[in-house]
């Protein structure tokens, strides 16, 4: 118990430090402008906040729509127990993406302009609308968890009644949105390194998002099982690991086909920073976890499954960073490395996300109660709140 408390205080301290640094950077950003807080420049206008906070943030939220589709559309009810954490991640993810956007936009006070000033030829316009609409959908998909907690029967019944249309709209919006983040880069064929520029970018972004969505569900279930001392839904998650193998396989084949079509093999074997990072992304983040997860022994073992999922997540992050930063640096000929303030805003946002998830997981019915816990709760309903 004492050890646990000590651990808790440790993480609290970390959280406080991250918040402190982040808030200071926030202060500089909003009183002195982007130039003072970031290393962005005319040569390199998009940095960490777009590359990580937006591109990765949205991708890591992909578990929400993936699982909703699996459970509600394909009617594979086995996955129902992990749908809530996935929707929660997606909802939090999107809220944080909007939050991060306020930092990156030069004029955050005009964020609403996209609602009234339309330019449908712009991918960014599509992104803006998808974020708005899908966040609304996610709020609705998440609301039953809250209504249950509050015991609000009528709104609960209403949201349940529109589940299917909601899921369909959600899947469509996600498909558009995940791929349109890739489409953002279609316009820069002469700038983005040929290892990453492809007319299939939107498709790659979409498929890899589905993959990372599954990986995130595994990852979170594992983490929360440790944090809350819950039993892990191993058979279920292994099953998800199997799905992941298939998705990674599809992704790999498409990537290879694309390299062949574009005759871009030479870039893969030219030794330089770009190809190194490409190898890291594909080798460690796609091929390795694909092989690992294909081995039943690994897949059925908690640590093996968890580490493989973690690799997929890291590979995904690396891919988005490669597209948005590494792949653009060569052309811009402007070395960009995020300033400490950019980094601390990002870490603050990640910390807020983790905290939000932990709080929701603790106080809301997000995870299915483990057997023994359910019993204790039955025996003394107040137990759960006593801690």
């Amino acid at each position, binding site marked *: 118990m004492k050890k646990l408390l000590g651990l808790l205080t440790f993480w609290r301290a970390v959280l406080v430090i991250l918040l402190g640094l982040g808030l200071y950077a926030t202060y500089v950003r909003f009183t002195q*402008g982007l*130039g003072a807080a970031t290393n962005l420049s005319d040569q390199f206008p998009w940095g960490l906040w777009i590359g990580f906070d937006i591109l990765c943030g949205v991708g890591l939220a992909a578990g929400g729509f993936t699982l909703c589709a699996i459970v509600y559309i394909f*009617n594979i009810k086995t996955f129902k127990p992990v749908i809530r954490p996935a929707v929660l991640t997606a909802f939090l993810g999107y809220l944080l993406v909007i939050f991060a956007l306020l930092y990156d936009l030069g004029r955050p006070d005009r964020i609403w302009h996209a609602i009234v000033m339309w330019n449908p030829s712009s*991918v960014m*316009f599509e992104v803006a609308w998808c974020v708005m609409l899908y966040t609304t959908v996610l709020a609705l998909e998440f609301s039953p968890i809250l209504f249950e907690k509050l015991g609000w029967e009528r709104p609960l019944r209403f949201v349940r009644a529109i589940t299917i249309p909601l899921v369909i709209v959600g*899947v469509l919006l996600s498909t*558009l949105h995940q791929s349109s983040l890739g489409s953002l880069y279609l*316009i*820069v*064929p002469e700038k983005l390194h040929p290892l990453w520029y492809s007319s299939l970018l939107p498709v790659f972004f979409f498929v890899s998002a589905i993959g990372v969505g599954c990986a995130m569900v595994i990852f979170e279930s594992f983490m929360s099982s440790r944090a809350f001392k819950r039993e892990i839904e191993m058979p279920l998650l292994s099953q998800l690991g199997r799905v992941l193998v298939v998705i990674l396989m599809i992704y790999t084949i498409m990537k290879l086909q694309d390299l062949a079509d574009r005759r871009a093999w030479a870039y893969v074997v030219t030794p330089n920073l770009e190809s190194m990072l490409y190898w890291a992304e594909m080798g460690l983040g796609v091929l390795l976890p694909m092989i690992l997860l294909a081995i039943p022994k690994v897949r059925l073992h908690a640590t093996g499954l968890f580490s493989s999922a973690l690799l997929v997540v890291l590979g995904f992050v690396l891919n988005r960073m490669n597209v948005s930063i590494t792949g653009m640096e060569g052309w811009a000929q402007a070395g960009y490395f995020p300033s400490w303030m950019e980094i601390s805003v990002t870490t603050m946002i990640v910390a807020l996300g983790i905290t939000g998830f932990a709080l929701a997981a603790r106080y809301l019915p997000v995870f299915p109660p483990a057997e023994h816990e359910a019993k204790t709760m039955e025996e003394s309903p107040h137990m759960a709140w006593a801690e």
Partner: protein
Amino acid sequence: MARKAMLIDITLCVGCGLCRDACKEQNGLPAGEETKLNANAYTVVQDHGNDVFVRRVCMHCEVPTCASVCPVGAFTKTADGPVLYEESKCIGCRYCMQACPYQVPTYTWDQVAPRVRKCIFCHTRLAEGLPTACAEACPTGATIFGDREELIAEAQRRLREEPEKYVNHIYGLNEAGGSSVFFLSAIPFEQLGFPNNLPDHPLPMLTWNALSKIPNIVAVGGTALYGLWWIINRRDEVGKLQAKLKEMEDRKE
């Protein structure tokens, strides 16, 4: 109004910087001798050695990438050529900067309420029938202003009459779908820092291809998802019903 344009003949430029100064005066920008485009310099003159000087300025593309990517439509291409920026719309996403193939738009990074800055082709002067300030200031005729078609003809004439003087290329005629600023040079353009890997078609076509699929994705995808759900879940229900019937029969027996 006929489409206006500028022809910049690099072989005639002496690097005096009068175009830059005139531009600064015209647009009320602080004086300075910048060599890189920035928020205080809509045009600059870059020294490439051996008396080769290259002006940099917004190309005022025929199908401007900046206008196509801006989510709120802050950029517009006017009928007479200029590509204008409307500050009051801009949300500061900087996609225009990321997307412009010539790396033209710049940003007032040090301001709390920053804005994009770039050459505006002196559109107010154009409206009065005047040439751009830089063209008017140029003492050697390196930068000339005129009707787009006439300037193209002029450039072609120069290439035809003095083929040994120039590389045989009017830069800006076809690059990324063409622009309203053309360059002639004695040295291959890629050696002067001009992007040489631009397609002949306008870049916005690349995203149009993707965007035009959206209605399809929504319509076909929506129907397909609904259909899938209907079929799969119906099978479920039918299964349940059959199970129930069977149960009833079993009981009867």
